[in-house]
C-alpha cells in the first residue's frame, strides 16, 4: 500500500524495511508457476481512477482515532496495538478516506470502531473474504484486517489459507491472546498453557490439543510477508506493522496481545520474546519456518518477505489476456450466441 501523498506507482522507501529482494521461488518441472516481473501495471482493471485526496501532513497518531472510546478491559493488550497502528498511520501519512478496516467478531475485531476511516465489522471468521472483495473491487484502497486468534484460526481458519496463497494487497493483523476474549474465556487454537486452559470455561479439565503457530501456518500457506510482534514492545511493533503495510501483497503479522481478563500471559511472555537476529535472511523461507517452530524463544520481527505478483496484478493480467482480440462490448457477447 502506497502512502496517499505519493503517486501510487512511485517507489516508496519503507521506513524501517530491510532490503526486500525479488525472490524467485524454485520452479522445477510443471510443479510451480513462472514468476512474473514485479512491475506494477499502469492501468487498474475495475474502478475508474478517482482523484487521490491528500491528508494534512500534520495528522498525528491521535488524529487517526475516532471519537469512540475503546470498550476493552483495563490492561488489555489491544490498547497497545491500537496505539501502534495509529502511529504507523501517522508516519505513513495514510489518508483515512482511503483506508478500510475490516474485521470479524471478537474483542480485537472491535478495532475499526476506534479508528478514523471506513470500517466493516463483519461476522465471526469472515473478515478475510470480505477484505478480499474490498481489495479486488477497489485496488487503490489501503485495506487492513484486524481480528483475533479464534476468529482467524478457528472459525475462519479455512479462509486464512486461501488469503495467503492469493496474495491480495492488504495487511492482516492477528491479535493473538490465546483465548476467546469476547465470549469470556474459552481455549482457542493457539492456547499453549495447559494450566491456564483449565481455567477456561468449556475445558474445566484442561485441553491437550496441539497449539497452532500462526507464523508457521502463514509460511506454509505461502504468504509473501510474515511477521510477529508483541503488544508490550511498542516501537518494534510500529516498525513491523509499518513494514507490513508497506509490503506489496498480503502481509501477515501475528501480534501477541494478551487478554488481561481471561488469560493474562504478559508475565509468561515477557521472558520468552526475543527480537530476531539482524542476520536472519528474510528471503529464506526454510530458515523462517525453522525459527517459527523454534521452542527456544518466541521470536519477534519479520520472518519472511518476498515480492510476488499480487491478486491485483494477476487480475490485471487476466483482464489484458481476456481483452486481447475478443469482444469488448455487450453486443459482441450477444452476437456470439446467435
Amino acid at each position: 500500500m502506497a502512502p496517499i501523498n505519493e503517486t501510487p506507482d512511485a517507489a516508496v522507501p519503507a521506513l524501517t524495511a530491510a532490503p526486500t529482494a525479488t525472490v524467485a521461488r524454485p520452479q522445477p518441472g510443471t510443479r510451480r508457476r513462472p514468476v512474473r516481473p514485479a512491475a506494477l501495471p499502469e492501468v487498474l482493471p475495475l474502478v475508474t481512477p478517482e482523484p487521490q485526496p491528500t491528508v494534512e501532513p500534520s495528522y498525528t497518531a491521535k488524529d487517526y482515532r475516532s471519537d469512540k472510546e475503546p470498550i476493552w478491559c483495563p490492561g488489555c493488550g489491544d490498547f497497545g496495538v491500537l496505539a501502534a497502528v495509529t502511529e504507523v498511520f501517522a508516519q505513513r501519512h495514510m489518508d483515512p478516506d482511503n483506508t478500510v478496516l475490516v474485521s470479524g467478531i471478537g474483542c480485537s475485531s472491535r478495532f475499526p470502531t476506534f479508528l478514523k476511516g471506513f470500517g466493516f465489522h463483519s461476522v465471526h471468521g469472515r473478515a478475510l473474504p470480505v477484505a478480499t472483495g474490498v481489495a479486488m473491487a477497489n485496488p487503490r484502497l489501503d485495506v487492513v484486517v484486524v481480528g483475533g486468534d479464534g476468529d482467524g484460526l478457528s472459525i475462519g481458519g479455512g479462509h486464512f489459507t486461501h488469503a495467503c496463497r492469493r496474495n491480495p494487497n492488504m495487511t492482516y493483523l492477528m491479535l493473538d491472546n490465546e483465548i476467546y476474549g469476547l465470549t469470556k474465556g474459552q481455549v482457542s487454537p493457539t492456547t499453549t498453557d495447559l494450566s491456564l486452559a483449565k481455567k477456561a470455561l468449556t475445558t474445566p479439565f484442561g485441553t491437550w490439543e496441539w497449539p497452532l503457530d500462526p507464523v508457521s501456518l502463514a509460511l506454509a500457506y505461502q504468504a509473501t510477508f510474515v511477521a510477529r510482534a508483541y503488544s508490550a514492545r511498542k516501537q518494534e511493533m510500529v516498525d513491523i506493522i509499518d513494514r507490513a503495510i508497506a509490503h506489496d501483497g498480503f502481509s501477515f503479522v501475528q501480534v501477541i496481545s494478551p487478554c488481561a481478563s481471561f488469560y493474562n500471559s504478559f508475565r509468561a511472555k515477557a521472558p520468552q520474546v526475543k527480537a530476531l537476529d539482524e542476520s536472519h535472511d528474510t528471503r529464506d523461507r526454510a530458515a523462517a519456518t525453522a525459527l517459527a517452530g523454534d521452542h527456544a524463544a518466541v521470536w519477534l520481527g519479520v520472518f519472511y518477505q518476498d515480492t510476488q505478483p499480487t491478486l491485483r496484478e494477476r487480475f490485471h493480467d487476466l483482464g489484458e489476456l481476456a481483452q486481447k482480440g475478443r469482444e469488448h462490448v455487450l453486443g459482441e457477447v450477444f452476437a456470439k450466441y446467435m
Partner: protein
Amino acid sequence: MSDFVVKVGGEGGTDSPTTAGEFMAQAAIREGNAIFTMRSFPAEIRGGLATYSTRLCDHDVLSQGDRPDVLFCMNQEAYDKLVGELAPGGVLVFDTDSVTLDAGAHADLTLYGVPMQSLAQGHVGEKRTKNMVLLGVFSALFGMPLDTLKQCVRDKYGKRGEELVAVNHRALEVGSEFVAESLTKTDPFAFEPHPEAARRQMIIDGSQAIGMGALAAKVEFFAGYPITPATDVMQFLAEHLPQLGGQVIQVEDEIASLGACLGASYTGAKSMTATSGPGLSLMVELLGLATMVELPVVIVDVQRGGPSTGLPTKTENGDLNLAALGAHGDAPRVVVAPANVQDCFYDTVGAFNLSEAYQTPVILLSDQSMAMRAQAMAVPDMDAVELRERRIVDGEPGPGYRRYELTSDGVSAVALPGTGTRAYHMITGLNHDELGYPSTNDGPLSMAMMNKRQRKLDAVRGEPGWSRLHGPDEARIGVISWGTCEGAVAEAVDRLNAEHPEAARALHLRLVWPLPVEEIMAFAATVKRVVVVELNFSGQLNQLIRAETLLPTELVRKFDGTVFTPGEIADQLRDLMPEPVVPPAVPSSTLRRRPTLASTLAK
C-alpha cells in the same frame, strides 16, 4: 399449424444425442419456428443415458409440451427407458444396429428402423457421425430442409476445417438418402418451415441468460464456488466479464463467495454470486449481515432437487422458504424468480436494480430445468433496459454523516470509501445507530432500524412489472404460480378455456418475496377458487400466500425432480373446478388493477 416434440436418447459420451438435438433446435429457429428444449444427464460422471428433447412449433411455444411425439433411440438403454414416454400414435425411430424391440409391442406406434451405426461406419466411414446420420433421417422424415442443417453444421465447425464440415455433411446426406430409398412415411408429423418469419435470435440457456443479464446490469464483481447446476453462470461470466473490465474469482467456498461480494459491494461495485441449494444454506449467516448492513448484492440460486444433496441433476422449486425466511431474527430481503430463459436475462437486470435501489440483498431463484433448457431469445434492445443505481454521497457531507439515516423510504445515501467524501464511518452486523456505530442497549433505536429495513421491502412490494396474467379477465378457477411452471400453467389454462369459456385464468409471480398481496387479492376477486401450482413438496409459495392473505387456496404440486407438463396441470385443475354457478363475490371492476406484462409472455 405444426407442433410436435422430438426426443433423442443415446449414450452421453459416444452417441452425443445432445449435439443432434441442438442442431435440430437451431435449424428450427432459422426456419422461423419456435422451440422449447430439455436436456437430461446421467448420474455417472461420463457415459450413461443422455437425452435431448425439442418441441418444434410454428407458433409461439410456452412449455416443453406433454410427451414426446417422435423418439429417436440410439441405443438399447434409450429404447428401454424412453419408449414408454411416447405419446399414443407416436413415432419411434431406432438404430437397428443396437436396439432390439420388444416382440409384439408398439402396435399403436409408427416404427422406422434405421441402421444408424452401419450407415455412419460403412457409408460415412466415421462411427461418431451417427448423430448426424440421425439428423439426416430426421430431415427427410419430417421435412426439415437439409440445407439449413448443413448451414448450421458449417457455422459451428467451419473454423475447425473444411474436412470436418464435409464429413458431417456427408453423414446428413447418408441419413436423408436412406429414408428416400428405404422408408415410407406413414406418420402425420411434419415440420413446417417459415423461413420468412425467421428473426436473428440467440439460442441460450437460463444460466447464459443470467450471465448476460448481469453483464447488461453492468456487474463488476463475481465470486463463486462451483456447484451443479449453477456453475454455468460462473463459467459464462469467467469467459466474458474480464473482457468488459470486471472480475470473476473462484473462491474457497460459498461463505467466501458471499463474503467477497459484500466486500466488493462495500466499495460500490455491483456484485453477484451464483450457487445452488447447499451453497445457499451455507450463506445464511452472511445473508443476514447483508440485510443488516444494507449492502446490495445479487445471489443467484439455481435450484435443484432437495433436501440436502438430494437430486443434483434434477429440478425443483424448493428453496423459496430458505430464500425468503432463512435467517435468525427477521432479516427482510427480496426474492425474484424468472420463469423462462428470457426472464433470466431481464429479471437479472431487475434483481440488480432492486438490489442497488433499495440497498438490499436480492436472491434470484432459477432452477435446473431453466439452466439446462435452451430457448430462442431476441437480442435485447439495450437502450430500452433501464438501470437503477445506488444512492451515493457526493462531495463531503461533513462530520455528522449518517450512513443509516432514518429516511421516510428507508433508503439512506451511502458514502463509499476512497471517493473523497471524508464521511468516515463503520458498518456492522450489530444493531447500530444512524451513524453506523454499534448500539446494543437502545430498544427504540433497534426498533426504528428494524422498521427502516422493512420500509424498504414494503416499497418493493409495489414495484411494477413483476407478474403476468394469462387467460380471460374473470374465470371459475384462478391459478397462481411461480418459477418454472408458468408455461405449462398457461397451456393448461388455454386447454381448459377451450373446453369451457372462462374456465381458468392465471397469475404468475416473478417477485415472490415480499409478496405482492394487493395484486393477489385483486386476482382472487376475479375467480371462484384459487389454486397454487408449484414444484415442491410442501407448497412453499402456497403457505406464504395463505399466511398473508388467508385465501383458502388449493395446492397442486409436483416433487419428483421433473417439471410439470401442461396435461398434468390441466388434469388436476379439472378436478378442482368449482361448479359454474355464483358470480365472484366482489365485482372485479371495483378492485384496483396493476399494469401487468401479460402480453410480453413468450413474445
